[in-house]
């Protein structure tokens, strides 16, 4: 009896968490609209949507990776390498869409190296992905020696600069991806396995689930989505640069953790991450409009991470 009571007490708590995020979001909108008349305009909103896509795309696999009890710090570097690969491939005379595929392949390959070391050989995810981060950043410079690559054909800019019915194409893509991922997490066995891994990997293994394959897939997905983010970034900025995606992991991880995903794994949701994403992109946008420098903003994001994780109980 008491157990079911406890259970009932927990349900509204979950709703509460979502509600807290929504309230926080609303309060932020109100605050910034009093600061800047431009903040609460359709154009600004579409602008924000357009800019949140890269962080949002990476946040999808990051949420799953953290739920499964791991971490991927190499996403920004993978984004950069994919972006530069796209530029180099196009420069070498390849069709632009083939170049996009090259970029996606490069990202997936990086992800699978991560996955191979972490899933198959049970190495620590944090150290492996830090190693990848440093190595890939180095390789980016080796590949193009730090110069930006620009000058893509017009159709390619459709991805990052066009809008359908006033809504940016890339934002539509992001939302579709979020819907697909949420659907997949709820309606396929993969979703159950991911939560299971984060809660009790041993029990999942004892149940005959291919634990290695699942973990591997997660890191490949992480690489693939980082590469997608790279493609959209190049299209949006019309240029592939060596510094693309630097420090993007801070925004991604902050969005995920604010959204209620538990740092030790097992708990969290993509809906939460989406809310977290909205909060941090509008926060950044509002601070930009108020003229707060980018690096000052990272102070606020850093503090947000500490607050979000500090509230989580082990």
């Amino acid at each position, binding site marked *: 009896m008491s157990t079911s009571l*406890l*259970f009932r007490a927990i349900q509204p708590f979950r709703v509460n968490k979502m509600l807290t995020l929504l309230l926080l979001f609303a309060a932020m909108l109100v605050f910034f609209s009093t600061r800047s008349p431009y903040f609460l305009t359709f154009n600004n909103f579409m602008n924000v949507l357009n800019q949140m896509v890269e962080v949002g795309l990476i946040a999808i696999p990051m949420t799953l990776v953290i739920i499964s009890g791991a971490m991927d710090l190499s996403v920004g570097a993978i984004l950069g390498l994919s972006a530069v690969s796209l530029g180099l491939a196009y420069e070498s005379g390849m069709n632009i869409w083939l170049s996009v595929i090259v970029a996606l392949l490069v990202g997936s390959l990086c992800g699978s190296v991560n996955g191979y070391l972490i899933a198959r050989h049970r190495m620590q995810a944090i150290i492996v992905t830090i190693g990848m981060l440093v190595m890939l950043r180095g390789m980016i410079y080796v590949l193009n020696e730090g110069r930006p690559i620009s000058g893509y054909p017009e159709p390619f800019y459709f991805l990052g600069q066009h809008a359908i019915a006033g809504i940016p194409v890339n934002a539509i893509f992001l939302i579709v991806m979020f819907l697909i991922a949420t659907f997949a997490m709820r*309606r396929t066995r993969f979703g159950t396995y991911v939560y299971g891994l984060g*809660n009790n990997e*041993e029990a999942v293994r*004892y149940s005959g689930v291919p634990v290695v394959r699942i973990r591997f897939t997660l890191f490949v997905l992480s690489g693939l989505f980082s590469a997608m983010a790279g493609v959209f970034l190049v299209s949006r900025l019309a240029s592939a640069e060596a510094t693309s995606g630097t420090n993007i992991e801070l925004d991604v991880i902050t969005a995920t953790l604010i959204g209620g995903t538990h740092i030790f794994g097992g708990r969290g949701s993509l809906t939460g991450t989406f809310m977290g994403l909205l909060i941090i992109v509008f926060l950044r946008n509002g601070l930009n409009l108020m003229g707060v420098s980018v690096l000052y903003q990272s102070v606020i994001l850093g503090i947000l991470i500490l607050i979000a994780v500090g509230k989580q109980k082990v």
Partner: protein
Amino acid sequence: MSQPILTMRGISKRFPGVKALEEVDFELYPGEVHALMGENGAGKSTLMKILSGVYAPTEGTIRLKGRDVVFHNPMNAQRQGVSIIHQEFNLFPNLSAAENIYIDRPDITGRFGFIKWPKLVREAQALIDSIGGGIDVRREVQHLGVHSQQVVEIAKALSFRADVLIMDEPSATLPENEVQNMFEVVRRLRHQGVAIVYVSHRMKEIFEIADKVTVLRDGKKIDTRPIGEVTEQKLIRMMVGKEVGNLYPVRITEGQPQQVLQVDEMSLDASHKVSFELHKGEILGLFGLVGSGTHTVAERLFGLRKGTGDVYILGKKVRIGSPLEAISHKVAYVPPDRHRQGLIKPMTICQNLSLNLLKDYTKGMLLDRKRVKQVSETYMQKLRVKAPNDQHIVDFLSGGNQQKVVLGKWLATEPNILILEEPTRGVDVGAKAEIYQIIHQLAEGGLSILLISSEMPEVIGMSDRILVMHKGEFVHEFRRGEVDQEQLLKRASNPRLHEEAVP
């Protein structure tokens, strides 16, 4: 005899819903080895935990060296002179033996707070030599053998000037040939006036080393006797008491002739191999003391551990290299620790019950939610899991119901062979009876069951056949009705027993 060094009076310990100890008195004299015996669940470990400061007793007093004492935590108990050596050592593998003994103690630092290495090494070496350890204390513990590590543990305990030393199954982790060395150390300690509480199942050792023996049963003290006044027979009878008969359903068939599983020279480790067979509808019990290798048998059969040897299922040779392959050959395994291995406790009953077979419940890419629901409801009903619905979080269920979920998730795979390891551990008596009834029905329905358990009544009450294991080997086979707990324990603790000695 002199004054007792330690007196426990009227010790009781209650946990929510369980009385683990009731009014236990216990006395210990300097220079004696006092064996503490009892079946699993008799209250030994609770008593030890109270004595070593892990638990506080609900009632009762402890007097140490003539003064009433309270132990706040293990460190506190140690400082007052009571040390415990656990089965699992608590050593720092990356530090030297000397440091492990004297770590973080003010007596080895000099005036400016620097560690005096020469003094540390000298004193540690002297301590090790005084118990005949024969270890170079400058070596790192990770490079020492198991016996030497145990000696380091003992030396660490003594370095606190321990008057009372508790040893929990000290021989369980030792190879056979090292046990005598350990006894040598224990005898020296006794000679130095240390009082030793020696917890063990192994009769042979008790008679060799102990001066006195105290037997616990169901949380009560049965008796304390000098070792000379008891025989093995008597001790076992004290431990076992009266049989609890009606818990176990009466078998109708006792297995059919058809052979379902045949294991041929399956390796457990580098030097041990086992062979056995299991028939259709049979319950085969596997019993052995700690360290006998029963758990390894299960791990090998379920693909959790690699090795050599042949396994035949229904006459066909199969390869089982992973749990996935085991499941595909219709082998199911209810693991001993449901918290760590059996369940994903923060998830729902439905998710747990369906976890093993989600692959089979997938249509195209998506889960067939109707089938998942149907399966989870079926097995919830079949096993009478008590919960409002299958969306209930497993963590909030009682131990018995949790265990039923583990059982259910494996039955959902419709196995031919079911390996049960400690199927009723941490489960109350009511749920126990229910689980036995379920196992019984499964066997009657033709399922072949391998029952691995450390609870003797369970093995005896449920099994059609019992294989007794000792240190990686099958040492005896009993048929149903041939055996009682005394004989089972005798065989498991002393394999070199002659046939005529069994009455």
